[in-house]
């Protein structure tokens, strides 16, 4: 006698929380593109100078640069959501005291800055 409502394909359009969730999951698409570029780049490197320069030229294509910029923004957004969740999933203790959530989030961003600094030093230092 009871009726069982079923979820439609558009369930995630129902509220903001679901839309933000979908946005977070969608960040994988531009990242996938970036990873494919990276793999192709490594492969071109192994194929000699000509292939490498061709790859470099493709990377300078405005559309490719646009998608890769999007990938950077997407990964920063994903990192932001992840860092926010981290203190809830992995509450850490230090010297018998709970580390506060803002401290954990700040620690993770410090890690990102360190990686940026390392990369900047490697390529431009």
């Amino acid at each position, binding site marked *: 006698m009871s009726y069982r409502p079923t979820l439609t394909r558009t369930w995630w359009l129902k509220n903001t*929380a679901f839309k933000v969730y979908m946005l977070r999951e969608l960040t994988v698409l531009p990242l996938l593109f970036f990873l494919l570029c990276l793999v192709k780049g490594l492969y071109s490197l192994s194929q000699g100078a000509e292939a490498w320069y061709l790859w470099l030229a493709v990377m300078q294509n405005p559309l490719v640069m646009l998608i890769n910029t999007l990938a950077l923004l997407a990964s920063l957004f994903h990192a932001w959501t992840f860092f926010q969740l981290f203190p809830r999933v992995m509450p850490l203790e230090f010297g018998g005291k709970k580390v506060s959530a803002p401290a954990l989030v700040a620690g993770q961003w410090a890690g990102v800055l360190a990686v940026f600094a390392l990369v900047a030093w490697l390529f431009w230092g």
Partner: protein
Amino acid sequence: MELEVTIQRYLPEQSSEPFNQSYTVPYDTSTSVLDALTYIKEELDPTLSYRWSCRMAICGSCGIMLNGKPMLGCNVFLRDYVQTGMLIEPMAHFPVERDLIIDMESFLTHLEAVKPYLISKDSKESVQSFDPHNQTPRQLDKYQQFSSCINCGLCYSACPQFGLNPEFIGPAALTLAHRYNLDNRDAGQAERMPMINSEEGAWSCTFVGYCSEVCPKSVDPAAAVNQSKVTSATDLIFSLLGGRS
């Protein structure tokens, strides 16, 4: 002051489809949605069915969807919906028996499945024994937040994974399992892990996180479920190394 309240009705003896019906309800600053439902039943339409008991957000029986959001009817007030209007529907993702009455069977089965009780180290020496089981504030602090659940099931109505697959053990039950695993008086983790590790267990959760947003007791079930993923992964590594299971 009066407000129009629309309710999704379902009367199986009349129609196999639910339909909406509106009522005009007088309210003041202290009128809750539950008060409005009671007013409708007593003054306007005695055929309306809904659940309630405590009227103070502690029994967990009055869950509804209010403008699409899972809420406790006794915990929300008409005064806050003057602009938006009010659509009251039965809790999402559960079979509906009549009007706002849902069938909670699947939720209760999942709760039971996680063995939500203290399992003592030696089954003969039951936890019910008269010996005191002292706990330090720090030991209590490890799980206290996760023990505030009132089994209202709102988190299940907020969880699209449960909506897509009712076999998913779901937020509250996984939280309860985690609550007992974190309790130093309990020795039942090994018995709970197979269920937590299973396909219907913690790994079905994709951290949508809406469950924690709607929880009226700030239990943060999303945190508990994802903490138990960490436990589950550790458990897997140990069992691969041939250690404790």
